[in-house]
């Protein structure tokens, strides 16, 4: 399969499906306020896949939950705007009342959680769970739902007749994950949020889920938000990648730039720390220190205590995302030094 080059992705449309502006989410803990998502802004176009990468506790799951307002009671969306647009009609997700929100979830935006293979009711057949979902959203024609579901099962490479009558325990983890994907597509949502979709799956099963996701994207128009700590999954599926650190979006770029020309020292650190299978064994470099406490994040850039490029300014002033290239944004005061460094390394490598 040929990799799609930036700008050539046929499935990406120009219209923005979801626009997030200055979103802040915090949790109330006994020790204080955990600032889990801090001032996150991004646009997602129709048909586009954006992956949010980062280590545990960086706020990526909170961000996903915040977008559809499924946060636990202890969480609060402090401020921000989430604008969802379909067919030219914009809606403010944060302003919706309960009923509007109920319709929005699943019909407009489906979210599939981490470990969702275990999300099924074990005592109901798949067909009953499908029907429950459809009915809750005003569907009355059982035959139509069934026909649509069978089509979707075929689309995710499942044997429709077997699966629809099965109980969840009769299906393997990978099959359940694909059933859930199909169920997510049942009401034709425009946005799907996947949180660690393949984490609990075996390698070969993971591959089948990835292939299904890829073929779905070529056949159906929907936008995808992929939340994963696994950099290889993002490399495989994303059009754009957002790197999160300590609740902030520190870099957003085209997937190829993220892996081949990252600007943020943290993104560089992550990529250098991941072992690869192809090519020579290259040395890996760990990022010194550990992620900060989100109750009292470091002043200035939250990454500065671990950053090799940290300067005085980084300790005082928090950098904002700035545009540094075609669809490439980075929040780092010293990105020119990072780029100059890479240039110098390339020159010295060429001399050798």
């Amino acid at each position, binding site marked *: *399969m*040929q*990799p799609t080059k930036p700008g050539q992705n046929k499935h990406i449309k120009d219209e923005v499906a979801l626009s997030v502006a200055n979103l802040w989410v915090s949790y109330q803990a006994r020790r204080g306020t955990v600032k889990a998502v801090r001032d996150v802004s991004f646009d997602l176009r129709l048909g586009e896949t954006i992956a949010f990468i980062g*280590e*545990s506790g960086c706020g990526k799951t909170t961000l996903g939950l915040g977008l559809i307002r499924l946060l636990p009671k202890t969480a609060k969306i402090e401020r921000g705007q989430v604008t969802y647009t379909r067919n030219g009609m914009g809606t403010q997700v944060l302003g919706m009342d309960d009923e509007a929100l109920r319709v929005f979830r699943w019909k407009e935006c489906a979210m599939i959680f981490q470990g969702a293979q275990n999300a099924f009711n074990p005592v109901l057949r798949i067909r009953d769970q499908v029907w429950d979902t459809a009915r809750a959203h005003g569907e009355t024609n059982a035959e139509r739902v069934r026909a649509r579901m069978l089509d979707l099962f075929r689309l995710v490479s499942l044997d429709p007749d077997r699966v629809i009558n099965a109980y969840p325990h009769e299906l*393997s983890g*990978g099959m359940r994950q694909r059933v859930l994907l199909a169920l997510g597509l049942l009401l034709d949502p425009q946005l799907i949020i996947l949180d660690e979709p393949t984490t609990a799956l*075996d*390698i*070969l*099963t*993971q*591959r*089948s889920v*990835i292939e299904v996701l890829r073929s779905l994207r070529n056949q159906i128009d929907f936008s995808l938000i992929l939340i994963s*700590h*696994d*950099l*290889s*999954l993002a*490399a*495989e599926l994303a059009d754009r990648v957002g790197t999160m650190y300590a609740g902030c979006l520190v870099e957003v770029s085209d*997937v*190829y730039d993220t*892996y*081949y020309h990252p600007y943020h020292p943290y993104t560089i*650190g*992550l*990529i250098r*720390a*991941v*072992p*690869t*299978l*192809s*090519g020579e*064994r290259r040395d*890996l*470099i*760990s*990022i010194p220190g*550990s*992620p900060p406490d989100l109750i009292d994040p470091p002043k200035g850039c939250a990454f500065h205590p671990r950053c090799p490029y940290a300067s005085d300014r980084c300790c005082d002033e928090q950098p904002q995302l700035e545009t540094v290239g075609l669809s490439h944004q980075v929040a780092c005061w010293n990105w020119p030094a990072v780029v100059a460094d890479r240039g110098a390394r390339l020159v010295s490598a060429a001399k050798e």
Partner: protein
Amino acid sequence: MAALMELAHLERSFKVGRAVVWAVDDVSLAINQGEVLCLVGESGCGKTTTGKIAVGLLRPTAGEVRFGGQDIWKMNAGDFRTYRQAAQIIHQDPYSSLNPTQSVVDILSAPLLRHGLAHSRLEARQLSADCLRRVDMTPPEDYLDKYPHQLSGGQRQRVSVARALTVNPRFIMADEAVSMLDVSIRVSLLKMLGRFRDELGMTYLFITHDLAVAKFFAWDGRIAVMYLGRVVEVGPTPRLIRHPQHPYTKALLSAIPEADPVATREKERVQLRSMDVPSLLNVPAGCSFHPRCPLFEPGVCDQAAPKLAEIGDGVQIACRVAARGAGRP
């Protein structure tokens, strides 16, 4: 060189209700002093069971575990204790493998006192501090009196490693020791374990589901790939990663996504004939991979299970069809 750890024709079954499951079926592996052997495979392939048998936590149903040439289940009590001291374990989950009610010094002192390496609490404390220094937790005084919940995930796993090192082992079985850690701290732990090989001549049985981690950690060692309780391929790491021979190894390597968008999207994929993983309760006859295998030949693969056979360059595979392709009968 004689192997430090030898697993000979191991078998292990478990009762599941009225049925019997063979978690490990005729596994033979040898690990030399100072060598790393990575055991890789998908969940349920028997890699953890094999590891537990190697460190004497499980008794094999059949077969022998030889440590320094001696069958561990025929040792006298004294020798067995020495073996237990020499073979240590690092568990996957540092959150559950450390007792939350004990401080770091308690955790590290227990094996020291148990094996008579320290004769007093004070001496145990000093030795514990030395162990913390070895795992780069300096100054140790900052950590000795902390409890696991006061440490980060990476620090907890370092304490687990320090605990394994307290009794000066020669052999460490690490079961998914870095899988729970974030990428940024995973590397430093792997490098530290590698350093113990150089400094202390440590021997590892390193169990992981992640072939990229295996490649990084065992580049100058070997990898053994397991499928449904059997070893299907063993070979030197660079060779196995670059030129896998067994169709299952090929399928695994081709299926793994990589943190490199071009490489991962252009990679050629091995197509399997079936995506269904057979249940251990009903393992297919003959080669257990045959219902999924792209090289399947009726009458050959569904008859007797293939044995591991050397095909050159230190590579052994359990596949008749691929072995024939490699120019051997």
